[in-house]
């Protein structure tokens, strides 16, 4: 039961309380660029969620078994090769390179999948689908998972990593869809010249971020209500 509430808290944390876009500032480029129409925005959100989940799965596996300090695989290879057992085995310096390739592969995979099974959606995405590779949100999710795989006494399992990733993707989708809805209405308003486009979008994002700040403390409240401790 406690694992399940833990997962719920991770999910709500990533989706609402510490929303990837409005709290951590990742995924801003598509957030500003693809949020003109609600349908494309929602589609982009779903694609990002898909990619983030696959990337999280791959990066958790690679980090847990290869890339963290004193990971099992390098340690095993080192001992088989007859190395000194006292040396500290640490491949974490390769983490960032591995993550970016994992992300590029995930995007490639999703692109092939969407092209095969949803051709009209693929066409409407155009160039934005490969651009998901430079979406900070996915790399950020991988980095968060890496952060929780550093302390050997408290390692995150695959379920927690995937929950974080899906929660982040859902939060991104919520934010981008809300922004698209607001911008559709903004198109009919008389926005001052210099602010049209990115300027007013950022100001609206600021107000949205203020609204989402209202979620602060919700996870603490849930924990207190359920009586689960620190």
């Amino acid at each position: 039961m406690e694992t399940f509430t833990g997962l719920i808290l991770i999910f709500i944390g990533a989706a609402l309380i510490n929303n990837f876009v409005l709290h951590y500032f990742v995924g801003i480029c598509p957030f500003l660029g693809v949020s003109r129409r609600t349908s494309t925005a929602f589609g982009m959100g779903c694609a990002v969620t898909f990619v983030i989940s696959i990337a999280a799965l791959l990066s958790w596996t690679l980090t847990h078994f290869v890339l963290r300090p004193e990971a099992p695989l390098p340690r095993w290879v080192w001992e088989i090769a007859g190395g000194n057992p006292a040396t500290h085995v640490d491949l974490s310096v390769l983490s960032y390179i591995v993550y970016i390739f994992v992300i590029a592969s995930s995007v490639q995979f999703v692109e092939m999948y969407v092209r095969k099974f949803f051709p009209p959606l693929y066409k409407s995405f155009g160039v934005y689908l490969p651009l998901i590779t430079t979406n900070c949100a996915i790399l950020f999710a991988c980095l968060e998972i890496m952060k929780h795989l550093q302390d050997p006494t408290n390692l995150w399992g695959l379920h927690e990593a995937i929950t974080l990733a899906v929660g982040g993707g859902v939060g991104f989708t919520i934010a981008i869809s809300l922004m698209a809805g607001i911008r559709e209405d903004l198109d009919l308003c008389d926005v001052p010249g210099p602010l049209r486009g990115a300027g007013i979008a950022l100001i609206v994002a600021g107000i949205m971020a203020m609204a989402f700040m209202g979620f602060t403390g919700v996870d603490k409240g849930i924990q207190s209500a359920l009586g689960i401790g620190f």
Partner: protein
Amino acid sequence: MAQEQPTALERFVNGILPENPVYRQLLGMCPVLAVTNGMKPAMTMAGATAFVLISANIIVSLIRHLLKPHLRILVFTLTIATFVTIADRFLAAYVYEMSKQLGPYVPLIIVNCLIISRCEICSSKQGVGVAIADGVGMALGFALALASIATVREILGSGTWFGLRVMPGVWPNWGIMVLPPGAFLTLGLLLGIAEWVSRRRSERAKSSQ
């Protein structure tokens, strides 16, 4: 017929204001919003980005004749990721507190569209000298953008600049400025001002002809 390409000086000057990475190209927003709650983290981030940008430009320019269309993005990404790892390790070794404060935003330099776009547009096509000038110009422009936003946010939000008190004691710190909404609002308004300035300038140029 060879197309005329900008000279080193033109690249350098372009990067600072006319094609400013943040205000004109709208690239690299993530660090701009995230680390500008104070001048110190902002300038550290500017330094790290400058290191990665200039180094990547140099390497890509050196191997530009070996690059083929299919694998060039792969090579760019590999190069950038390597330099970002180096920068991240140096920060952790020599300015540990700041490295902790910047947190995940230093590795996020890898996906900063600015660097990949400079590799693509400039250093994969021109010599090392021009590439360096382009890198330095863009880095300066980026630092300028970071500084402008960080100044507003830090002075209004904490009453300090680089950690030194500049506001009178009676100033009630606008806490919102150092929180996410303040970042969005500041950038949005400053973008509006930058756009207004550039429109005035082009109107004046048009009317004077």
